[in-house]
């Protein structure tokens, strides 16, 4: 635990023993991949990994879309591993009620050590089943510290299914959010008024419909997980992108609308003024209700926790702590200002081994995110994960409503964690 003016910027900290609380995690690659309509997943892994995944699938309501090929040591050492995967797909398709449009073949960490020739496997499967799209995906948490962790590669695989389209619509895709934004989200409303539609993968219930995402003129990247995927779509499909991660700062939202206005050659800033004023009013209102109650912000709940801490501090809130395992590059500017202007805010790495001693237990923080809630034992907790569904000015308003609800209500953190499907 350190004050933000004193933390070591090289964090994530040196490799050490980690503490992982039951509240740690997010959607995970299985649930994200299941967003692709008419897709199925085949997990190639040892028995125990499969059991873990199956229970997760059950909790998230997608168990009927996941199958498992359990492998043994002899499969690995004999070199029969590759043929086994090909044969198992035959069996899987015989067993499924309907052959899927897409099969994601997930391999677990051990595959990283084998150097399996997945391109050859996929080529053979493509030949055998020309109407199915096969993709190799990795369920390898050991790659978390690389440029291509599982979340990033699954997004690339999902949107890599789209082919270049000759048709271009006045349509903008949202990448990076796991859920579609509400109809009243200012981004959707403002674009709709200008004749543009907004498309999110979860808006599509068939693979054919999903493919129309390639007809968009622009991708908006709302979270870092989808940045490489957007770059890939720009390269392969000719769809440019704007990276504007969820930000609860009214001025940042205004800047985003300026950039977007330029792209669509329509003014979105003037018509968004009302929303801007409303967001500022909501911030002021929440501050008046919450007063000086110390606030803790969790990096799993908020994509830009340092930016949020700065915004809240500038609006008079008492931010006490940010729980984050590091300062990502896109948060560096906010962090620098924060460290200078609000040097006493604590930065706690929830994954550090000391976290297991629960140094904040019993301190009454108003927590944004349930990992902070778990760390502190607070009953004032905003139930949110990865900024789910929040974007633009309405996102700020909604977050302020949730903050006030959490402040005035009584949270059951255990129930929140269970609902999020994190305990398997």
């Amino acid at each position: 635990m350190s004050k933000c003016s004193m933390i070591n910027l090289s964090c994530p900290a040196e490799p050490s023993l980690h503490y992982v609380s039951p509240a740690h995690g997010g959607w995970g690659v299985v649930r994200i991949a299941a967003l692709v309509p008419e897709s199925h997943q085949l997990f190639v892994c040892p028995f125990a990994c499969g059991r873990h995944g199956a229970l997760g699938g059950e909790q998230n309501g997608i168990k009927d879309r996941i199958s498992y090929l359990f492998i043994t040591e002899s499969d690995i050492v004999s070199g029969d591993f590759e043929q086994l995967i090909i044969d198992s797909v035959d069996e899987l398709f015989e067993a499924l009620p309907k052959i899927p449009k897409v099969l994601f073949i997930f391999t677990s960490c051990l595959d990283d050590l084998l150097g399996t020739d997945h391109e050859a496997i996929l080529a053979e499967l493509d030949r055998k089943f020309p109407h199915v799209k096969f993709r190799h995906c990795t369920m390898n948490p050991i790659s978390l510290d690389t440029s291509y962790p599982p979340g990033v590669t699954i997004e690339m695989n999902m949107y890599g299914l789209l082919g270049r389209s000759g048709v271009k619509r006045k349509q903008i895709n949202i990448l990076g959010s796991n859920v579609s934004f509400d109809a009243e989200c200012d981004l959707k409303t403002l674009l709709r008024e200008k004749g543009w539609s907004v498309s999110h993968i979860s808006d599509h219930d068939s693979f054919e419909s999903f493919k129309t995402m390639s007809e968009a003129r622009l991708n908006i990247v709302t979270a870092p997980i989808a940045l490489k995927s957007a770059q890939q779509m720009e390269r392969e499909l000719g769809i440019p992108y704007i990276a504007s991660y969820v930000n609860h700062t009214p001025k940042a939202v205004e800047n985003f609308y300026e950039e977007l206005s330029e792209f669509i050659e329509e003014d979105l800033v003037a018509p968004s003024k009302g929303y801007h004023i409303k967001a500022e009013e909501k911030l002021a209102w929440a501050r008046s209700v919450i007063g000086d109650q110390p606030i803790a912000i969790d990096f799993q709940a908020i994509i830009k926790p340092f930016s949020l801490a700065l915004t809240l501090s500038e609006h008079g809130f008492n931010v006490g702590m940010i729980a984050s395992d590091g300062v990502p590059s896109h948060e560096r500017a906010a962090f620098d200002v924060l460290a200078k202007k609000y040097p006493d805010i604590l930065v706690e790495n929830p994954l550090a081994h000391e976290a297991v001693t629960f140094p904040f237990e019993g301190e009454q923080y108003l927590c944004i995110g349930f990992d902070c809630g778990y760390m502190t034992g607070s009953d004032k907790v905003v139930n949110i994960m990865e900024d789910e569904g929040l974007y633009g000015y309405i996102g700020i308003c909604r977050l302020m409503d949730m903050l006030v609800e959490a402040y005035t209500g009584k949270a059951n953190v255990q129930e929140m964690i269970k609902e999020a499907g994190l305990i398997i």
Partner: protein
Amino acid sequence: MRRIAIYGKGGIGKSTTASNLSAAFSALGYSVLQIGCDPKADSTKNLTEGKRINSVLDAIREKGEDNITAEDVLFHSPSGVWCVEAGGPTPGIGCAGRGIITALEKLEELGAYDICKPDIILYDVLGDVVCGGFAMPIRGGYAKNVFIVTSGEMMSLYAASNIASAVRNFGKRGYASYSGVILNSRNVPDEVKTVQKALDEIGGNIVSVIPRDSAVQEAENQGKTVIEALPHSKMASCYRELAERMIKLTEDEQ
């Protein structure tokens, strides 16, 4: 671009052959990238004045996976050859095959090939182990032609047979093809005859016979290839002839 892999048993003279070939290709006017795929990370030593260069895995260890740049792992030798060493884990622990996979993937990610713009890529690969990692250079997107360095010694020929068999397995997938054997003489009695007899079973031809010559050691003592240290020697001519022959035997792919 020509993509060539040199395989062979450990200690058989692959790196000496590879670095002399690189220097010879370079002297012929080709832009060359030599990638050492051996955990010992000494493939390019004779191209870099006897000094070891930082390997890709060393750089990852020192600077972190996300912080390394192509400049950290790409070195330009005095003879104009671009040199890379994949490197390996701490001896005795870790997985060397995985190290090769990581290093080759990292080179692509860093855009190393765009920086060097090589006419020829030469992979120098240990051939005793044929796990997935060490087979990586003969997979799709990597080497197109595989040459095996062997002597007339039984263990070396046994390794050559294993490697040829692995290449043929991959060949069915349209990957690299086995292009022949470079006989690096150890002065075994009837060496050419012995190797030729083995090749009757293994398949393939002797592309070149490299005689055993003290010039190699003399050059190595200077931290150089024979091409650079003793350019007018018989051995230098021998490596140059081999380089020219390999140009004819390999395909220049766009």
